[in-house]
C-alpha cells in the first residue's frame, strides 16, 4: 500500500499530470472507437448485402419463368384420324408434325425432320387432345393453336442460348435457329404468361413442369401438421405454464422441449422413417407421414411461443376469476387462453412457416419421388414445394434453373405472407399490461 503511494507521489513529480497522459492517448483511442464502430456497421451492411444479393440473383434468374414461349400452328383436326367416340386415342403428334411440315415443306431426311419436330414440346399433343375432348366441333376444322415450344427453343427466345456459339457447343443446330428465326419473323413464336407453371404437376420436360402438384402436397402436409401440432402444442403449453407442479418431472419435460427445438431436422426424418414407415407401416411419400414428422418438429416451437404468450397474461386476471368462484380449468379456458390467443396464433403461424420451408425430413420419408399427378388426398404420394425446388435444382436442363428460381420466389412469397400475417396479428391484437 505504502509503496503504491510512494510511486504515485513520485510519478506526480516526475511525469506530466494525468490529464496530459489521457489526452495524448485520446486520438488513438478515438480512432479505435471509430474503427470498432465501423466494424459493427460493416457487419450489418454485409448481412443486408448478402440478403440483397440472394434476392437479386434469385429474382433475376427466375422472373423469366413466368413467361413461356409458344408456337402458333394451324392444326388440322383430321376427322379421318380422330374417332369422335374416343378422341383421346388419336395421333395428335402426327397432326402437329403435318402442320410443321406444311410450314417448312423443304425439310427432307429423317434427322432434319426430327430436329424440326423437336421445336414443339412433346407434351403439346395433350393440349390438342384436351381441345378435341372439350369441344368436339373442332374435329374436321383447321384451328390456329398456340402450342408450348420445347425448352431449348424457350431458352433461345429468352436469350439464354448464345446464337454465336459454334454449332457443336449449342443444344440447337443451325437449321433449328433458322426455323425459329423465320417463325419469329411471322409472329408465330411469342412469349405468353406461363399458366402451365402454376397448374401442372412435375414433369421431365421443363416446359411442362409446374408447381401445382407440389403446392397441393405442401398444403396437405401443412394441414396435417396444423391439425395435430396446434391443439397438442397449446395443450402442452397450458399444462406446463398453468397447471404443472414444480418438480423434477416437469423440469425434465421443459429441458426436453428446449432440446427438441434444437435437434437437427434430419433426425426427425430418421425418426419418421424408422417409426412411422417401418414400424407402423404407414404409406411412403404421403402428406400424412410428412405432416406427422413436421408435427413433431414444430411442436417445440409452438409450445415455447404459447408459453411465452400465456406467461404474459397478468396474474391479476387469474386471481380475479378465481375470486368469483371459477375453477382452475375455467380460469384458463375462459380467461387466460382467450387473452393469450393472439400470441399463441403468432407462434403457430411462425411454426407453420418453418414447416413449409423444411426439406430434409421429407427427403427421409420418401417425399422426393418423381410424381406427376396432383395428389388428391392425405395418402396419395406427393412432394412438397421445397422438395420440388431440391429436385429441380438437381436437374441438368437449363429450363429447370429458371423454374427452380421461380418456384423459390413462390415459396418465399408464401413465407412472407405467413410471417407478415404473424406480425400483423401481433401488432393488432397484442395487449400490453
Amino acid at each position, binding site marked *: 500500500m505504502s509503496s503504491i503511494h510512494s510511486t504515485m507521489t513520485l510519478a506526480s513529480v516526475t511525469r506530466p499530470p494525468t490529464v496530459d497522459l*489521457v489526452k495524448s492517448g485520446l486520438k488513438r*483511442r478515438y480512432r*479505435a*472507437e471509430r474503427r470498432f*464502430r465501423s*466494424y*459493427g456497421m460493416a*457487419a*450489418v451492411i454485409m*448481412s443486408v448485402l*448478402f*440478403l440483397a444479393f*440472394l434476392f437479386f*440473383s*434469385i429474382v433475376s*434468374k427466375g422472373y423469366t419463368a413466368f413467361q413461356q414461349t409458344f408456337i402458333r400452328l394451324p392444326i388440322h383436326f383430321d376427322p379421318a384420324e380422330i374417332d369422335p367416340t374416343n378422341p383421346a386415342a388419336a395421333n395428335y403428334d402426327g397432326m402437329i408434325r403435318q402442320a410443321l411440315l406444311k410450314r417448312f415443306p423443304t425439310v427432307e431426311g429423317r434427322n432434319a425432320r426430327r430436329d424440326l419436330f423437336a421445336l414443339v414440346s412433346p407434351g403439346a399433343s395433350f393440349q390438342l387432345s384436351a381441345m378435341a375432348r372439350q369441344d368436339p366441333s373442332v374435329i374436321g376444322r383447321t384451328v390456329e393453336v398456340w402450342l408450348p415450344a420445347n425448352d431449348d427453343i424457350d431458352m433461345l427466345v429468352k436469350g439464354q442460348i448464345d446464337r454465336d456459339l459454334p454449332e457443336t457447343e449449342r443444344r440447337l443446330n443451325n437449321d433449328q435457329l433458322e426455323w425459329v428465326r423465320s417463325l419469329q419473323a411471322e409472329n408465330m413464336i411469342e412469349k405468353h404468361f406461363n399458366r402451365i407453371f402454376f397448374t401442372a404437376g412435375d414433369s421431365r420436360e421443363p416446359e411442362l413442369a409446374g408447381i401445382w402438384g407440389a403446392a397441393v402436397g405442401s398444403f396437405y402436409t401443412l394441414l396435417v401438421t396444423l391439425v395435430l401440432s396446434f391443439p397438442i*402444442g397449446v*395443450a*402442452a403449453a*397450458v*399444462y406446463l405454464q398453468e*397447471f404443472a407442479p414444480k418438480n423434477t418431472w416437469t423440469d*425434465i*419435460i421443459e*429441458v*426436453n422441449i428446449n*432440446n*427438441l427445438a*434444437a*435437434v*437437427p*431436422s*434430419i*433426425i*426427425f426424418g*430418421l*425418426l419418421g422413417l*424408422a*417409426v412411422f414407415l417401418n*414400424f407402423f407401416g404407414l404409406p411412403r411419400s404421403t402428406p400424412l407421414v410428412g405432416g406427422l414428422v413436421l408435427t*413433431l418438429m414444430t411442436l417445440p416451437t409452438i*409450445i415455447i411461443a404459447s408459453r411465452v404468450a400465456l406467461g404474459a397474461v397478468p396474474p391479476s386476471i387469474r386471481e380475479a376469476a378465481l375470486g368469483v368462484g371459477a*375453477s382452475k*380449468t375455467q380460469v384458463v379456458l375462459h380467461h387466460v387462453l382467450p387473452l393469450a390467443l393472439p400470441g399463441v396464433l403468432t407462434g403457430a403461424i411462425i411454426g407453420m*412457416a418453418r414447416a*413449409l*420451408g423444411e*426439406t*430434409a425430413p421429407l*427427403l*427421409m420419408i420418401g417425399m422426393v419421388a418423381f410424381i406427376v399427378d396432383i395428389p388428391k388426398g392425405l395418402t396419395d404420394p406427393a412432394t412438397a414445394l*421445397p422438395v420440388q*425446388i*431440391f429436385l429441380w435444382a*438437381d436437374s441438368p436442363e437449363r429450363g429447370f434453373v429458371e423454374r*427452380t428460381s421461380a418456384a*423459390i420466389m413462390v*415459396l*418465399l412469397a408464401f*413465407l412472407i405472407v405467413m410471417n407478415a400475417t404473424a406480425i400483423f396479428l401481433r401488432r393488432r391484437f397484442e395487449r400490453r399490461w
Partner: protein
Amino acid sequence: MSPFTLFILLLGLSAAAYFVGRRKAFAVGRKIGGVNRMHSLPTYYGVLTALWCGIPALLIFSCWLMFESNVITSLVIAQLPEEIRSLPPNRLGLIINDITNLVHGNIVGGEVNRVIEQAAEHYRGLKAISHAALATVTLSLAILAVILVQSRISPRLRARNRVEQVFQMVLIACSCIAIVTTLSIVLSVLFEAIRFFRAVPISEFLFGLNWSPQLAIRADQVGSSGAFGAVPVFIGTLLISLIAMLVAVPIGLMAAIYLSEYAHKRVRDVAKPLLEILAGIPTVVYGFFAALMVAPLIRDTGGLLGLAVASESALAAGLVMGVMIIPFVSSLSDDVINAVPQALRDGAYALGATQSETIKQVVLPAALPGIVGSILLAVSRAIGETMIVVMAAGLAANMTFNPLQTVTTVTVQIVTLLIGDQEFDSPKTLAAFALGLLLFVVTLGLNIIALYVVRKYKEQYE
C-alpha cells in the same frame, strides 16, 4: 362399415350424447326445483356423457386398427401352404405384399396364381369380419356408456370435477409427447445403429479412415467392398462447420454489438427484421444459392488466381451456411448483451472509458458465457444443417482440410444412403442410422451444455 364411417359415426354419437346428458341434467334439475341446485352446470353433465361415450370407444378403435393388419397377416400366413411358409423371410414378404396389393386393388408385382388369389380372398374375408366386429364392439360400447352415465346423472354427481380431471389428463398426455418424441428418436436410431454395429465394429466406424459405403451387389464385384470408417466424414463436417463459424461468428457478433449498443433506433427497426428474414429463408433456397451461384463464382475466381477449386468445394457450402447462421448468432448474442446490466456500462463510462472500450473490456467479458453458449448452439446448428451441404457439398469422402476441395458431411451421407429404395437390413442403410445416432448425440450434448450455460448466465444478472 369402413373405419372412416365408423369414426365419423362415433364422433356423431358422442355429439348426440352431449345433448342427451344435458337434457337429462335439466330434467333432473327441474325435479328438485331448479337446475342451479345440481352440483355442476348442465353443460358439464353433457360433456361428461359425451366423453364416456367417445373416449373408450375411440381408444378401442385406434388400438384395433393399429394391430389389425398384423393379426390378419399372420392369420393369412398360417393358412398358406407349407412350401410358401417355409420360404426365406424376404421372399415371403414379397408374397405378402402381392396379397395385400391384390386386396387393395393395386398393381401386383409378381404373377398372380391360385394360391395368392385364395389368400387374398381369405384376407378380404378376415378384414370384413374384423371391421364388422370392430363396429359392433365400439358402437355397443358407446351406446352402453351413454345409457349408464345418463342413468347416473343426479344432483350429487360431480360432473365438473370429473370433466376437469379428464381435461387435465389430456393436457398431461400432450405435454408428454415431447418426452415420447425424444425417446422414440433415441430408441429408433439406437436400435438400427446397434444392428449396424453388429456388422461393422464400432471402433472401425469411429476411427476408420476409409469411407465408401457402396456394397457389392454381386459377390465377385470389384471395388465395392464397403468401408465404413467415418473419420473422413467427420473431418468434412468439421471443416464446413468451421468455415461457417468463421463467417457467422464475427459478423453475427459484430452485428449484434452494433445493433444493441450503437445503432439508432430507426436503423435497428429496419436492420433487425432484415436479419430475421435471413433467418426465415428455407435452407433449400440457401442450398440452391450455394450450388448455382456461389460455387461457380468461387471456382471462377479460383481459376483466375490459378487455384484448382473443386466445383463442389467445401468453401462454397461453408460460406453460405455461415450466412445462414449469422442471424442465429446475432439474435442470441443480442439477447445476451442486452441482459448485461446498464450499471456495469455506466461504471465504465464514469471511469472515462470510450464506448468501444466499455464493450470490449466490460460488456463482452460479462456476456462471455452467454456468447459462448450461443456460439455452441450455432455450431450444433451448423453440424446438423442438411440441405445446403446436400446441394452444394460433394459425396466423395476426402480426408482433407483444404477448403477448396470436395468433402462430404454426416448429413449428406445420411441423405444419400437413405434416398432411394434400399433393403432395410443392409449395412449401407443401417450406417445412416449410426451416423444419425452420432449426430443426435453430438448436437444434443452441445445443446444441453449451451442451454445450461445460457440459463446460468441469465440467472446471474437477474
